[in-house]
């Protein structure tokens, strides 16, 4: 599976490119699920520089929202450091520790699902790196992390639109409006004006 095609959307909806090797003092790579293939392709693109780049690379990996586990692909690359974590939250704990030691000139690459890339980006931006300096390539699942604008609770791995907020129970429709600071799309009550009139859920995100 190559880059995920997304339908045209409003300008706050993130767009993704293709990971490209850039010269750096170190390479921090965060991926989940099918993102492992984007990481493999990144080093393939590095060509004869791949070995030198791998010697300065730290890869954090976790299986994707649909269970895809391509750790074998990551493990076989031969990066200086690579860790498999069982979930995104545990990956983010490791990432926090890695960021404490990140030096100027470190290149950052994110690959895989939006929930993984969004939360990693949020934590990396908090260290002062502008989001435009973070490379991102989408692969695999398109499930969304959605914040209920009413109770502020975040529902992970949303597949349908509308869906029921896992915290306050309101019926929410999923907007394309996206906050990098919260690393989530916005969910808004769909039947506020006509309580109970909720259209049938459609599986929009897989």
């Amino acid at each position, binding site marked *: 599976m190559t880059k995920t095609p997304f339908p045209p959307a*409003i*300008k*706050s*909806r993130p767009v993704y490119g293709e990971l490209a090797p850039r010269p750096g003092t170190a390479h921090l790579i965060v991926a989940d699920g099918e993102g492992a293939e984007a990481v493999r392709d990144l080093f393939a693109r590095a060509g004869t520089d791949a070995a030198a780049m791998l010697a300065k690379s730290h890869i954090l990996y976790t299986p994707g929202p649909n269970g895809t586990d391509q750790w074998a692909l990551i493990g076989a690359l031969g990066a200086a450091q690579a860790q498999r974590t069982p979930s995104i939250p545990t990956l983010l704990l490791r990432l926090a520790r890695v960021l404490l030691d990140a030096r100027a000139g470190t290149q950052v690459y994110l690959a895989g699902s939006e929930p993984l890339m969004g939360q990693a980006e949020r934590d990396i931006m908090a260290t002062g790196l*502008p989001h*435009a300096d973070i490379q991102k390539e989408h692969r695999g699942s398109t499930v969304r992390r959605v*914040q209920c*604008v*009413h109770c*502020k609770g975040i529902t992970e791995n949303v597949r349908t639109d509308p869906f029921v907020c896992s915290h306050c129970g*309101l019926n929410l429709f999923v*907007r*394309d*409006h*996206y*906050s*990098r*600071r*919260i690393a989530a799309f*916005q969910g*808004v*009550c769909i039947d*506020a*004006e*006509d*309580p109970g009139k909720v259209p049938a859920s459609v599986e929009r995100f897989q």
Partner: protein
Amino acid sequence: MSLDFKPQFDSFFKDETFEGSFTFRNSPQAIRRFPFPFDRDEYMYSVNIEPHVRGRKGSVFENVFDVDEHYVSEMRDRARVLARDPLRCQSLPHMDLAGWDLLELIMENLATDYPQWFHLNKSGNDWHWINKPLGIDQKFTFLDNSTLPHGPMEYITRQMQGDFTLQDEREGNLWVDAGMVTTQADWSLDFDIGMNFFEWHAPVPLAHEKMVFERALKFLLKLQHGSPVRRFNWTMTVNPLLDTAPETYPEWGPMRTSLTQENMGEKMHLRVELQALFRLPRSNAIAFSIRAYLGKFAELVTMPKWGRRLHRVVRDLHPDLAAYKGFLRNRDAMVQWLSQYDDGAPTSPGIWPED
């Protein structure tokens, strides 16, 4: 709710509510000076920006910041909203200096334009601020956060009508990195804070295709200190709710289903935002003030020109805009009610009621 000010209601400042009992209304003088936003009988987005210069005496353009008969009650309503949801006021850590710039801008203009209500005495960085309508007397050290009960932006915007956002300028873009937002037309500061100009406007329909935001940003990046600009925006609000936040939409959304031909004149409000933009001197940030004025349909049609024009604008508005502004479901009923006040006579150009 406890207040950290002592509201002074008098023959000018009205004691009224923007929730529950909804006792808000405009006096005849306030109707006459209402900032009616339509200068012709139709509406479409445009980069409708003009210099924010002093305008007609008695109008909302007379002063840099307009303080009107609703001031004290609006500040009480803001305190209520903030007590309930403190996330309505946020400032990212690098925005303190811009907050002080804003505090200075507001205090100096209020003290100059309304000496009967506001006083500012400065001795170096030792400042003394008196706000008589809110019963506030505060000595503090300019640029020292520890000398005020809130951060500088929050402190001063708890004392000024209208929402405020502060935009940091970097990477050739504007970033909404701070704000006091309690009188908004359905947008969430908590969600949008940190976004750039295109991102926080992303949900607006039609305007992106017309390149409105590209042109507006280009214009705003050239904004100079001392040369503020302004524009109008507008929507419709059922009941005089200053606070129509996405957060509380399940509470106020159902009110949109309560309209009849009998209550339309009292319940339906044209909500006009007088928006002004100021370049700030120390931080180089841009302050954006979004002042909401509510006018009941029944109040506005007392000006025959406005009655005719409002009918035509609402009737002919692009359905995408009516949907975005949240009144598509009520549009036909609004047009029906307003049609009583449109005899088909021509209207004069411009916004003033009697020109």
